[in-house]
């Protein structure tokens, strides 16, 4: 495994330059900026209605259009180019703030955007995406894979996987813009507003779901972590330095947790980076399997499916994006049976579970850091874990999520009716950007997933712990807990 490959997880600055902002805060800034621009629609100023959206298509000319009819004159291709240019400018500015090489980023982003969006458009082809007989009739087709439009995420993921595994030099060339964590964090900040609007329609149900989300925190930190750590140490003979980040990656929240805990216990940087690489690869496997299992076996328990995905799929990007696929698959299956659930609840449940778990990463890292630096690995002269590390390791993008959620909820419930009625459409425009960041996330995760890693001598043992604990324990206990706490609760029906 080359150092370059490792760098894909967290590109370092070889020249030691410190960026004025980190990826978390950048995600908050960009996510909030999109959210605020979208809210201008509340005062009848449409600032982002030009963003491109894709419909299921049989004739390519009808696939793309601007989100708002005010920008219909742009046409689909015009909206796509406008979206590309806007994202290129804004994200290149972000890359500059991160002290990355802006030219390299811009070139790489161009490739990432066009390949990812092309995959998304292909995924929306009617023979892949049309679900109901009525849709098939509308498009004049007699078969469909019924993947729904969101199946396009899978196409983006597969495109990334092909590049990672068959064109590694190209993957290396575009790595500057392969940033799944940044893209999903921006998406999650935007998602806060969308979830708020969804929750506002059924506030009592949303409150019940939040209460049940607490079980996920207990499960991830206290049950999963302890079992995975024990298995890694006792059954597989891993050292403490490897077992703690590994247990955190598998049980809590993939990349962020492995890196936070690795730092807290003073592990060598290579340890969490290697663990993170495995997390991403296994997340890909989960994304390709679990949403379809959920559709097959949990379509009549939609919120169990959402909670399960949030608990079982590691890394924010894969979990939240898998929640999106699961939602579309389950809604489509129910729609085919004549039951039309309101969209947003399954994705909202998966996201809420993930965000709840994320909130405690800093605290858990501090707890482990305290135990390690005071009891397990006491090194004279080495700094002990301090309470300040809780804030230092807190995933800041959650602040953005909470802000958009609170503002969205206030606008939907606390403003006069003439303003409140415009909120869903305004946030819907921001949500179109969220979909685009999901697409970029899926593609980027694919590009980071070189499966050869799993077969490399020495790393097989790491993969074996992951395989045994994830598919032998985490996935099934997650299902059991999700069933215990979310069964019998259905999303509201679409009006």
């Amino acid at each position: 495994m080359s150092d370059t490959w490792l760098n894909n997880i967290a590109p370092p600055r070889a020249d030691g330059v410190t960026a004025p902002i980190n990826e978390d805060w950048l995600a908050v800034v960009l996510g909030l900026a999109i959210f605020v621009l979208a809210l201008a629609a509340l005062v009848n100023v449409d600032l982002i209605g030009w963003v491109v959206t894709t419909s299921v298509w049989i004739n390519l000319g009808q696939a793309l259009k601007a989100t708002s009819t005010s920008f219909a004159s742009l046409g689909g291709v015009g909206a796509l180019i406008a979206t590309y240019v806007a994202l290129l400018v804004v994200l290149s500015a972000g890359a500059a703030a991160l002290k990355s090489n802006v030219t390299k980023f811009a070139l790489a982003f161009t490739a990432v955007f066009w390949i990812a969006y092309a995959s998304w458009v292909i995924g929306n082809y009617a023979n892949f995406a049309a679900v109901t007989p009525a849709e098939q009739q509308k498009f004049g087709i007699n078969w469909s894979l019924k993947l729904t439009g969101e199946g396009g995420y899978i196409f983006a993921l597969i495109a990334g996987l092909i590049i990672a595994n068959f064109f590694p030099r190209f993957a290396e060339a575009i790595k500057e813009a392969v940033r799944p964590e940044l893209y999903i964090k921006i998406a999650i900040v935007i998602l806060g507003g969308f979830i708020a609007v969804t929750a506002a329609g059924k506030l009592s149900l949303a409150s019940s779901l939040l209460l049940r989300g607490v079980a996920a925190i207990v499960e991830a930190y206290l049950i999963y972590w302890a079992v995975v750590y024990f298995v890694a140490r006792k059954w597989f003979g891993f050292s403490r330095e490897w077992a703690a980040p590994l247990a955190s990656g598998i049980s809590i929240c993939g990349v962020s947790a492995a890196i936070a805990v690795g730092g807290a216990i003073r592990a060598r940087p290579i340890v969490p980076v290697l663990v993170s690489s495995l997390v991403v690869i296994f997340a890909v496997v989960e994304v390709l399997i679990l949403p379809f299992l959920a559709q097959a076996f949990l379509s009549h328990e939609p919120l169990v499916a959402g909670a399960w995905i949030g608990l079982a799929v590691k890394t924010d990007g894969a979990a939240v994006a898998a929640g999106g696929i699961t939602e579309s698959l389950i809604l489509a299956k129910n729609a085919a049976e004549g039951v039309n659930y309101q969209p947003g609840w399954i994705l909202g449940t998966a996201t809420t579970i993930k965000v709840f778990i994320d909130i405690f990463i800093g605290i858990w890292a501090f707890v482990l850091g305290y135990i390690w630096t005071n009891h397990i690995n006491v090194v004279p002269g080495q700094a002990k874990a301090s309470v300040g590390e809780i804030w230092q390791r807190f995933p800041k993008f959650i602040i953005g999520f909470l802000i958009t959620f609170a503002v969205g909820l206030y606008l939907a419930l606390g403003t006069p009716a003439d303003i409140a009625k415009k909120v869903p459409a305004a946030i819907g425009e921001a949500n179109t950007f969220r979909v685009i960041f999901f697409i970029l996330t899926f593609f980027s995760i694919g590009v980071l997933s070189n499966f050869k890693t799993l077969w490399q001598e020495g790393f097989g043992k790491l993969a074996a712990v992951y395989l045994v604990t994830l598919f032998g324990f985490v996935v099934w206990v997650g299902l059991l807990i999700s069933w215990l706490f979310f069964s019998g609760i259905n999303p509201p029906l679409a009006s």
Partner: protein
Amino acid sequence: MSETDIRKELRDAPVEPLLPIEKKLIGWSLGIGLVLLVGLALLNHFVPATF
């Protein structure tokens, strides 16, 4: 550290026995976790979701 070093380290690392503090960490985590989950399950049972 090179790739080969890491592979060698993973393959040849001596077994570190579980320290009492690690056993405590695992035991207390599981114990507190199970108690909290039972408590939450009871709460879930007696305070059903409102629609």
